[in-house]
């Protein structure tokens, strides 16, 4: 039997070059040190993305965009067997994915893994982050209940506030002057076709770069002489640990999805006032709260404009950090980059907490 298998493998390998893949997979090693835990978060993000693809595909079987959107999600939730579970898994896994992506980004940032030669890993990661947030934003509208309706209405006010081109962009997203079934239809196209089409190639480049350069070790390890640094092979040792964490992630996600099933609100109604206590998803809370605060300090268009400008500037700095702090030494630039990261993390957490406190 095993002889048959190995000759079959040989036959396939000769034609597809599987051995080269294995060699490529084996080439990489993962550093072992006290902060190794943070190396798993990219893999966990990837796991949730896979869950999203599969549950998304299942939802696609019954979801109908356009005027029927709410009714089809209601049917999925209440009439189709286990529809509630698939939908709940999709919603929970989406939130967990955003959380994992944020943890991954900050751990990469503080471990300085964006430095030479891994700049493109950071940049592709930033593109994936933006796409991930757009996935969240577009997917949130699809059930077309009260909350998703107002969240989209408010969310689109942000591009609408851009000077000159703002209203034009917002109308293009909405497919009209108001959020309507036209909006659901085009958000659907974004969510299931355009965004995956962009996301998947970037994901592959991102993963290929990680494999090519290997995991970065942290600066404090870099200071040690080579013979004191420890590492394990990616394949199969690290991969096995990765898979063990995927199993934990699956269990956590399944428990959350079944114990706290995602609900569906009242159908969206353009004539009904917004429900009290309405707020964006947690990953938009920080931006929401900052805009609100700036709007209070500088009333009117000035506040919004200022908020968007500060946000954009911060993002640009964040994006180009590898060009500023690109060398493997703990100089002033390295320290400044760390302070900038701590500041960003602090602002993010503080404004999010603040946003929830004043609800």
């Amino acid at each position, binding site marked *: 039997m095993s002889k048959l298998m190995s000759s079959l493998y040989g036959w396939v390998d000769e034609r597809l070059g599987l051995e080269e893949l294995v060699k490529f997979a084996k080439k990489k090693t993962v550093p072992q040190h006290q902060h190794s835990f943070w190396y798993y978060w990219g893999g966990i993000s990837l796991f949730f993305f896979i869950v999203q693809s599969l549950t998304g595909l*299942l939802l696609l*079987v019954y979801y109908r965009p356009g005027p029927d959107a709410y009714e089809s999600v209601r049917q999925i939730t209440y*009439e*189709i*067997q*286990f*529809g509630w*579970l*698939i939908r709940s898994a999709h919603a929970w896994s989406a939130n967990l994915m955003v959380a994992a992506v944020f943890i991954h980004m900050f751990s990469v940032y503080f471990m300085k893994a964006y430095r030479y030669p891994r700049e493109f890993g950071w940049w592709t990661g930033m593109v994936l982050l933006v796409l991930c947030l757009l996935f969240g934003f577009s997917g949130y509208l699809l059930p077309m209940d009260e909350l998703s309706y107002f969240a989209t209405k408010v969310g689109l006010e942000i591009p609408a506030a851009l000077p000159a081109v703002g209203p034009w962009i917002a109308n293009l997203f909405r497919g009209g002057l108001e959020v309507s079934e036209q909006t659901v239809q085009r958000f659907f196209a974004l969510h299931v076709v355009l965004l995956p089409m962009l996301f998947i190639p970037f994901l592959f480049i991102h993963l290929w770069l990680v494999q090519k350069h290997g995991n970065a070790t942290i600066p404090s390890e870099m200071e040690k002489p080579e013979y004191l640094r420890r590492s394990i092979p990616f394949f199969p040792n690290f991969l096995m640990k990765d898979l063990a964490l995927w199993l934990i992630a*699956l269990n956590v996600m399944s428990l959350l999805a079944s114990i706290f099933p995602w609900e569906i609100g009242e159908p969206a109604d353009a004539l009904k006032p917004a429900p009290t206590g309405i707020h964006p998803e947690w990953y938009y809370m920080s931006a929401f709260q900052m805009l609100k605060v700036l709007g209070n300090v500088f009333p009117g268009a000035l506040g919004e404009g200022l908020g968007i400008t500060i946000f954009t500037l911060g993002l640009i700095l964040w994006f180009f950090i590898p060009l500023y702090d690109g060398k493997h030494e703990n100089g002033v630039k390295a320290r400044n980059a760390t302070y900038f990261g701590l500041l960003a993390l602090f602002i993010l957490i503080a404004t999010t907490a603040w946003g929830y406190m004043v609800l």
Partner: protein
Amino acid sequence: MNHSAEHSAEKIEGQEPLMSRRAFSQVLFTGVGMCYAAAIGYPVYQYLASPISRASEAVAVNQVSLPDANKLEKGSAMMFKFGAKPGILIHHADDTWVAMEAVCTHLACTVQYQAEQNRLFCACHGGVYDTRTGANVAGPPPKPLQAYKVTVEPTSVVVSKV
């Protein structure tokens, strides 16, 4: 640590262990893996199969009432839904009523009534049926169409399974 524990266990028993550690973990992992596959596979199957049970319920119809179908003119026919399938009701020139399943027994296309040739015709592969009995008279169909019982009421026509 586990390794030495295994060794000492062997020594105490003084015999070969029932199962090697490798075999034990293989069985364990396969078992757990199958549990997970079932726990994921079952809801996914039920989810995808959900409309099938509803469709089967819809098929479990024994009769339908067609309001105002009694006004159907002589020498003409109308389509109706019998459970999930299309049916055809024909009002012949001699005032007899006939109803049958309109699904061709060849490859399941829907048949049509052609008054001038007095036949039921399947456009897909040219099957021809008798308009009174549903018998397959020409073309590829292997079996006659299934006939229904027709009762004409004052305000409707009731079609039921024979």
